[in-house]
Structures are given as C-alpha cells and as structure tokens.
C-alpha cells in the first residue's frame, strides 16, 4: 500500500463529490440567474417591479416577521423551561415541539384547514366575529409559524444543556431577578445559537411552499407569497418572471449560507474560550 495509491483514491473521491455537488446544487443556481437575465436586465427589472410581485414580496416579509418574532419568544421560553427545570411531561413537550419537522407540509396545511375550515365547530364563532383564517393572510402566517416552529428552540436547547444550571443558580441565590439572570448570564452563552436559529427560521419562513399553498387560496396580490407567486408565473409560462422572483430567494439562500458559516465559526471560537 503506497502513498501514491492513497493520493489516487483521495482525489478520485474529491472529484466525485465536486461533480455531484456541482450538478445537483450549483448548476440549478446558475440556471436560475441565467434564465432570469436571458431577456436582458430590463425585462428582469420589469418582472420584479410588477405590482403583484411587490405585493408577494410584502406578504412574504410580513409572514416571515411574524414567524420569526413569535418563534424567537417561544424558542427562548421553551428552551429555558426545558433545560433549567425538571418537571413531568418534559419529554412529551419536546416531542410535540419537534413534531412540525416530521409532518409533511401538505398535512400541516390540512390540519389547519380542519381546525378553522367550514366543517370545524370554530367556524361559526369565527364567522360571527368576522375573522377569516383559511384562504386569508392569517392562515398564511399560521402555516409559516407551524413549519418553522422548532427551528429556534432546537438551536438553543443543546447549548443550554451543555452549559448546565450552575451559573443561573448562583445568580439567583445572590438575588438576581429573572430578566437580569437571563440578560447577564444566559444570553451571552446562547447569542450565536439564537442568531443561527433566527437565520434558519427566516430562510424556511420565506421559502415555505406546501403548507402555505394549502391555506392561501392563491388570491393574486392578496394571499400569494413569493413561492406561490413563482408557481403562478411558472405555470403561466412566464419563465423570465418566475426565475426573476426566484433569483431574489437565491440571493437570500446564499446570504443564509454565508451567515451560517460565520455564526458557526464565532460560536465555536467562543465556546473554546470558555474552556
């Protein structure tokens, strides 16, 4: 077994990986940008400044802000509650929090239709109160929250578990208030994990398709998010438009990947300093 043989194997395997990733991951990205710009920059800009495109972007941002905001509050509370205290039913709660990850997006949409749709007992009350959830903006927001539900708590929980409860106990015994403990003791530890969770949550919230598709009702300019608008354009054979709107989401994905590397690096560096 010579060194030469190792080198051949090494570079063969690296080449296989590089070709696989290039065809499966990079080529589609290049393709999106190339197709979006094939009719020139003017057509690209026109597709993006279309009224419905702008409305779709607006709704996507709105749903994303709701999902990220609420899931951040939830994620921090759930992580605090699960890692700092012992109580009965902890396992059930963790399982339920992670459940949205294993459910198909279509089924996620379906359960909300069953909850708030016409055959639900809630429907009469909601109708009397003048609230529409299904085929309206609240439905889109609910679906987005559901599919991104565990994203932030999942990132924080392992960090808090590894850190233990000693520091918080010491702070509490010295008389610190809840929010002081959180701000001064806990938060510095989870800072990067929390940010990473927010980044992941944002990416998924902006891109959710299946669940939102079930609940939105596809009203152009009203309940169409960016991915749904892309579907509409694509099925209407407006490929330049579809790929132009897609290119915005590609930019978002690239930013997410870059941020991920940075946050992971910062988190690692800090946990090494702690030791």
């Amino acid at each position, binding site marked *: 077994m010579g060194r030469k043989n190792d080198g051949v194997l090494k570079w063969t*395997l*690296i080449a296989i990986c590089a070709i696989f990733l290039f065809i499966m991951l990079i080529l589609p990205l290049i393709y999106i940008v190339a197709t979006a710009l094939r009719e020139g920059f003017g057509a690209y800009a026109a597709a993006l400044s279309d009224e419905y495109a702008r409305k779709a972007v607006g709704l996507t941002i709105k749903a994303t802000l709701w999902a990220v905001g609420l899931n951040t509050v939830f994620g921090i509370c759930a992580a605090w509650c699960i890692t700092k205290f012992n109580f009965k039913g902890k396992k059930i709660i963790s399982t339920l929090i992670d459940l949205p990850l294993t459910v198909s997006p279509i089924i996620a949409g379906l359960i909300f239709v069953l909850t708030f749709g016409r055959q639900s007992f809630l429907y009469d009350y909601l109708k009397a109160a003048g609230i529409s959830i299904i085929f309206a903006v609240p439905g889109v927001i609910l679906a987005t929250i559901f599919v991104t539900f565990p994203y932030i708590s999942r990132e924080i929980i392992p960090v808090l578990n590894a850190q233990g409860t000693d520091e918080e106990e010491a702070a*509490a015994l010295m008389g610190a*208030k809840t929010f002081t403990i959180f701000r001064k003791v806990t938060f510095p530890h989870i800072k990067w994990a929390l940010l990473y969770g927010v980044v992941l949550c944002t990416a998924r919230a902006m891109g959710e398709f299946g669940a939102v598709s079930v609940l939105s009702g596809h009203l152009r300019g009203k309940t169409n998010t960016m991915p749904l608008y892309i579907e509409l354009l694509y099925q209407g054979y407006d490929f330049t438009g579809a790929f132009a709107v897609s290119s915005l989401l590609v930019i978002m994905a690239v930013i997410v990947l870059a941020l991920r590397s940075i946050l992971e690096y910062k988190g690692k560096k800090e946990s090494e300093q702690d030791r």
Partner: protein
Amino acid sequence: MAIKRKKTRVIPGFGLSFGITIAMLSLIVIIPLCSLVVFTAQLSFKEFWETVSRPRVLSSYWVSFSTALVASLINAVMGLILAWVLVRYDFPGKRFMDGLIELPFALPTAVAGISLTHMTVSTGWVGGFFAKFGIPIAYTKAGITIALVFIGIPFVVRSVQPVLEKIDYQYEEAAQILGFSHARTFWKVIFPEIFPALISGFTLAFARCLGEYGSVVFIAGNTPYETEITPLLIMSELQEYDYASATSIALIMLFAAFVILFINAVLQSRASKKIGKIA
C-alpha cells in the same frame, strides 16, 4: 415532596416560560392536531378504507415510496463519500464544499423545483443532453428522484460527519499493523462505527422525501398512476373540498412516517446496546 420541589427550583421564571411555551404549543400544534383526531373519529372505517385503497391512491403510494427509497439510497452512498471527504481530506475549497451541503435547507423548495424542472426538460441544459439518447428526465419518475436527491443531500452528510470526526485513528492503525488492507479496515473497523449514524440520516432523508411537495410538484408532471405522488393527491382532494378523503390519505402518510421513525429508533437502540457490549 412539595418542599423538596421548591428547593430544586432556585432559578426563577418557571411559571412565565412554562406558561408561554404551553400556550403557544397548544395554539400552533396541539389544537390543530386534536382537530385532526376529532375529524378522523367522524369518518367511518368503510369510507376510510375505500378512499385509501382506490387504485389511483395505491399507485401514488408506490410512486412516492419507490422514488423516495431510490433517492435516499443514492444520498446514503453520496452522503457517506461526502462525509468521508470532508472529514479525512484537506483540499482547496473544502470550507466552501462544507457550506454548500446546507443549500437544500436554505433554498426554497419551489425555487429548486422550477429550476430542476426547467433544466431537465428536453430543451433544458441537462435534459437536452439526455434527450439526444432518448432519455426523458422531467415529468418521469427519474425527475422526481432527482428532486428528492436534491432535498435529501444534507441529512446523511450531517449525521455521519460528527461520528466520523470522533473515531480514534488508533483502531485503524492497529488494523493496518495487523495487516488489514485499506478496504478491509474500512468495512471492518470504521463502517460498523458509523453505521447507526448512516441509518439515522437515511431514515430522516427518507421520511422527508415521502412528504416532500414543493420541489416535486413541478418536475413530476403529475400523471395519475404514473408520476402522481401521495402529497399531491392530498392537495387535489383539498382543492375539491373533499376533506374526508384528504384526511384519510394523510393518516396513511402519517402512519408511514411514524413507522419509519419507529424502525429507526429500534435500530438505534440496538446499535447502542451492541457498542455498549463491546466496551
């Protein structure tokens, strides 16, 4: 007991964090799930069975299952090679490759779907090449498989990578000193160690592929009996406001997902017992 409990809770904020957690969990997960259970209870078994055993539904199970299986097997092999390359070798662009793995999580599925479809139709960059040999990709099961391979790439890599990083080089060295060949060292020493992680990555990818909708719906062509996946069937029942049929098919899918995750859990606990015995 009451006193002891108070003692263990030195840290404040239990009431507040527990309250918010339970309130949001109920609103977003528990109540919708309960409505699924309530609605299911109203279905008659005969009706349920007739819906889920219609020939068109049965063939959609097969399309979903076979494409998800092939895609996850491809990902298991490629994921193993990728994890190996990323852990064991140094080469220019390694960090870039490592970051790229996560792209399927970051890129919206609908965007991936239209891009892969447009690339593989007979006029596209890749589809045009294969069309010369008379092989269609888009709107066939091969197309669905490609979309699912895209979706599943990160799962196996990310579950095998950390285990491979932790393996001690000592065992390999010992095996080599004892005269094992490289291939034999890999299969006898390294592979058993990473096997549980490989299985868990495979099952996660498989479960995800079964439920995938966004990226597949464009490339599938959605011909009944041939390229119609189960999630799409649920979607079309929903669009016809046939909630009973949609729920029935969804229950079969949920059941399948639970079986897959259960098998994984059993395999994992058996593997950890085996390792425990050796140690």
